[in-house]
């Protein structure tokens, strides 16, 4: 019975708003002064970064030769499940509009120290998964960093609410099983839009399942089993959504699905290039869609 109520409320939520001619949604207030101050700080940090990028470049030995334009994958994306994916994309857009956005907009009105506490808390929990994955990727230095972050933030950072490790130059560096699979040589695989979660590929989808499996298996402080796990999952989802600045169909464009797919898979492929610095790649065939 309870499930029926939930389904009914959900259906009303999705369909009910459609009939009104004039609907007002309250959004979190904008903070232009602080945003601009942050942009100035970022511009300064970027200027410094650019120096570093330039000075780092020719570290030579063992590295594969630089990529040339001919090495770029096709502009087409491997998407054999396109109809299914497009269906999911539409579902996600509606779900976002009816459920996710209103909730995360309300959440974003909470004072920012509370929100950053929640954000850091979940980030800290994921360090366990980072540690395991960096280890099996053979990147032990990074694994040690993750361990260091977890220890510092769980103690001085009061159970992960504060990211003190970042102040000790141990910046956040998330990874996951999807990246591990890539390190092991797996291609991204077909594009996949996962209900509620959004753009992914087969490899990244497997990665997500495994990442959750690890958290569930380790079950730190018994957070991931039992009744509280539901609340935790919802809080994690809301926090994640509130930190993604994306609005379905704000482009207004019929090509939005194609554009997001293109950008998502290209980002993944570029990250793969970074993981395989030492491997001389085979030239991609122009006929094979990227990601295959």
């Amino acid at each position, binding site marked *: 019975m309870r499930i029926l109520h939930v389904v009914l409320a959900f259906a009303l939520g999705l369909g009910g708003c459609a009939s*009104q*001619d*004039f*609907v*007002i*949604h*309250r*959004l979190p*207030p*904008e*903070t*232009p*002064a*602080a*945003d*601009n101050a942050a*942009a*100035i700080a*970022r*511009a300064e*940090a*970027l200027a410094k*970064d*650019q120096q570093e*990028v330039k000075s*780092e*470049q020719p*570290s030579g030995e063992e*590295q594969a030769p*630089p*990529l040339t*334009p*001919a*090495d*770029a994958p096709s*502009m*087409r994306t491997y998407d054999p499940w396109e*109809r299914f994916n*497009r*269906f999911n994309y*539409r579902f996600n*857009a509606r779900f976002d509009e009816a459920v996710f956005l209103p909730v995360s907009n309300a959440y974003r009105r909470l004072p920012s120290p509370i929100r950053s506490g929640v954000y850091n808390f979940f980030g800290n929990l994921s360090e366990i998964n980072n540690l395991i994955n960096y280890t099996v990727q053979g990147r032990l230095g*990074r694994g040690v960093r993750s361990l260091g972050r977890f220890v510092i933030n769980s103690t001085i950072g009061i159970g992960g609410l504060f990211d003190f490790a970042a102040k000790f130059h141990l910046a956040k*560096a*998330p*990874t996951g099983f999807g990246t591990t699979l890539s390190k092991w040589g797996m291609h991204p695989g077909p594009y996949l839009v996962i209900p509620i979660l959004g753009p992914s590929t087969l490899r990244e989808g497997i990665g997500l399942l495994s990442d959750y499996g690890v958290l569930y298996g380790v079950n730190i402080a018994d957070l991931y089993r039992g009744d509280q796990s539901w609340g935790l999952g919802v809080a994690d989802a809301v926090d994640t959504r509130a930190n993604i600045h994306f609005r*379905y*169909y*704000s*482009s*207004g464009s*019929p*090509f939005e699905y*194609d554009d997001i797919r293109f950008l998502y898979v*290209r980002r993944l492929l*570029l*990250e793969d*290039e*970074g993981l395989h*610095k030492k491997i001389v790649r085979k030239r991609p065939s122009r006929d094979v869609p990227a990601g295959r």
Partner: protein
Amino acid sequence: MFMPASATLADDQPATVIAAPVAKGPATGLADSSALRATLFGTPPQDIAPMPATVPLVEINVRMPWARPVPAIFWFDGKLRVYFSAQDKPAPLAIVIAGTGGDGNTTFLSTLRGALYGAGYHVLTLPSPTYPGFIVSTSSTGVAGDLMQDGQDLYAAMQRIVAHLPGKVQITDIDVLGYSLGGANAGIVKSLDANEHKLHIHRAVMIEPPVSLFDSVARMDKLFALSIGSGDAGVERLYQKLYAQLANLYRASDRVEIDTNFLLTAAAAVLNTDAEFSAAIALIFRIDLMNMFFAGDLYAKTGVVVDPRHPPKVGEPLERIERILRGKPFAEYFTKVFAPYYLKHRPQSTTESLVAANRLDIIGDALRNDPDYYVQTNSDDLILNKSELAWLESTLGSKIVVYDHGGHLGNLGDRQQIADMLDMLAGRWRGAAQ
């Protein structure tokens, strides 16, 4: 300082110049390096005008009573999305219109909203009539880009929205603004209101408007052809080059994720030459154009990329259509969609008259004689040539300010632009030489 970039943007004289006075400003009409750079990277954050700490914001979704049936493929665009920030006391309302392809909450609009709200205005921001969400929900034709038609649709939408604003909002006066194409739209809306008196619009500030829509867009087509090449093959070459450069940069950096910070760093490292700036600007503009082209073709049933008998259904792959549209210049939208549609619906018109009807000349008298129209522009604006800038200067007289630098919108939000804009809106403007 000005380094005319070879022949990046040849200064072609539009065929329809009407008694253009001799140019006196430093306008080159050519794309020089600093203009391209400013256009691409925008106002540096340290030059942005002072902003308020918080600005309240609501999103309003409006269904227009005159809306045409929503095509299945545009199921998400049935309502117009506009954004409103209310003062908690009686205040003037500033209505701001986005530039080509822009939605109701672009970064430019957000900057203007901050400045206007900080100066005590209620602020309502609207998408461009060329934004697909506007074309589907609000346009009475579905074929965007006609100044007068788009102005009428905008004006009707404004009336409906203003009438339905939450009851507590007390409006003492109404002004309209817009940037780029939105600037031209704002001028037209004020001129319509001067006849119909539905909103009693007081002042209009047009920020870097085009003078001739089609000549401005033709310049962007030319930029595309020169910097990217013709058709989709040019886009593919550009993509391959960018991909390789990004991959090499990313490998050289010690980063884990490709995030916004990396992309910003990379953009500055990868885009260095005039040709690269031009390519990026032209591509961004082309992407905006594709939506308008697609929607126009669908509504006008002109069959360029959309088969009128079998319009694409929801969930159908669109990659092929997108690829074709990437290679199509605006000129094709004009000759194959826009002109056929309007020639059919306005039997007395000709191709030439359609072009002429899309110049600011159509409100030239009002711009000249009405003290409440203002223009802000740049001497190196990419979308103007010398004679167009000279026309603006001679028409507006003391009601125009021309900045030396900024390219197109590369100084929107900077201290001087905002201060002058607020002076103009408040009636304090005494001319550029004050």
